[in-house]
């Protein structure tokens, strides 16, 4: 399957929660690397990030977002049929965090709850998964929780966020269109190589070394092949967007907002220019919130588009891409949705 359309699925609302703690990529970096950081920040476009304190997890953020959204929607918790988490920051390696949240949120035990392991690309895939349950008639109301606790002080890209999207059955809902893709040949481009069964953690992985900035690096750290990720993103995303538009017979003028995963400025600007999109149609939260992994589409919608989304029907194109490698695009019409203001916890 490459492209498909889901019917009878209404986008009811969305809420986003970020940690209160603001980390400044330049001022909070060790003095020895600040000059280098200035150049880096100019080019990746990321100046501040939100980082969880030690005690806080992705599920804590998603919990706050979900409680707020359900209250604002005035949805009865007993009516929730599914809670799906798309992310890579579980509370424990097992059991699934979605099941823990079923209890914490006091959702009924009839709730379908499980986790899906996708990162930056995850939002359109999650929308498709919960949307498919609804479109099939299997469930009426579903919650999609997307995000990660991926930020670390030493890494200037990633930032933490938890989000929730509410979807419900509605025979009058406009169709949602999808283009979803996977390329496992690129699985080493972004990888946490240690800690799974291929390479379990050994003592040698835990022996750190200090880098030039004084930050400790370990064998258990995420490995990211910058040029490979850049090439993947800028070569695969623009044709996928064009392909979905062509498939559904829409022009770019018919889309109100193009929301892309917030990877870094270099990647996002290249994608925008290749698609010849005007800046005002492509909102960005890189400067203030960095790369919030799969949460970056909801973070951007909440922080930059909330007022516009409250002013009547909007057609948005949502595109996520990254670890996997995996990339997905959705076209969604949003009308009368509930969008609480950004939550800080």
């Amino acid at each position, binding site marked *: 399957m490459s492209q498909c359309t889901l019917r009878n699925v209404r986008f009811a609302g969305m809420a986003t929660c970020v940690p209160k703690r603001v980390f400044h990529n330049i001022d909070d970096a060790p003095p020895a690397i600040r*000059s*280098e950081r*200035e*150049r*880096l920040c*100019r*080019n990746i476009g990321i100046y501040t990030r939100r980082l969880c304190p030690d005690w806080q997890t992705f599920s804590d953020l998603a919990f706050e977002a979900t409680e707020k959204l359900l209250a604002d929607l005035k949805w009865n918790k007993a009516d929730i049929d599914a809670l799906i988490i798309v992310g890579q920051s579980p509370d424990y390696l097992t059991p699934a965090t979605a099941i823990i949240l079923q209890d914490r949120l006091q959702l009924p035990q009839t709730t379908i709850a499980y986790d899906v392991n996708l990162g930056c690309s995850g939002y359109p895939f999650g929308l498709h998964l919960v949307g498919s349950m609804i479109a099939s008639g299997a469930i009426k109301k579903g919650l999609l929780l997307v995000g990660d606790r991926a930020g670390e002080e030493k890494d200037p890209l990633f930032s933490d966020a938890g989000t929730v999207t509410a979807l419900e059955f509605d025979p009058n809902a406009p169709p949602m269109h999808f283009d979803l893709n996977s390329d496992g040949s690129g699985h080493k481009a972004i990888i946490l190589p240690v800690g799974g069964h291929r390479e379990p953690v050994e003592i040698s992985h835990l022996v750190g070394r200090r880098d030039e900035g004084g930050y400790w690096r370990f064998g258990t750290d995420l490995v990211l*092949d*910058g*040029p*490979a990720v*850049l*090439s993947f993103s*800028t*070569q695969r995303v623009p044709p996928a967007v064009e392909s979905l538009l062509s498939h559904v017979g829409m022009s770019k003028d018919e889309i109100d907002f193009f929301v892309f995963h917030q990877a870094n400025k*270099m990647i996002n600007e*290249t994608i925008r*220019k*290749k698609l010849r999109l005007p800046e005002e149609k492509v909102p960005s939260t890189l400067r203030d919130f960095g790369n919030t992994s799969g949460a970056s589409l909801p973070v951007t919608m909440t922080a930059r588009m909330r007022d516009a989304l409250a002013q009547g029907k909007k057609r948005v194109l949502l595109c996520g891409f990254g670890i996997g490698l995996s990339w997905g695009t959705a076209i969604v019409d949003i009308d009368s949705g509930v969008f609480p203001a950004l939550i800080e916890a």
Partner: protein
Amino acid sequence: MVTIEQFIEQFLAAVDFQDPVEVKADTKLLDLPEWDSLAALATIVLFDTEYGKVIVGPDIAKCVTVGDLYALMG
């Protein structure tokens, strides 16, 4: 066709070094103090957006001088 002089100008704008540096065709990339992974990414973007030419990390890794990068335009 972009000349080597024009290329060097566009290359320096793309890599956005903090400290100004003189670059000629025979300047070795590894002799540039700020030639790093960010500069390599910027070079890939420059080729893609300005010259319509797709290059990848290993293409850059084979280049010794700025002139070698210029030759990637083919």
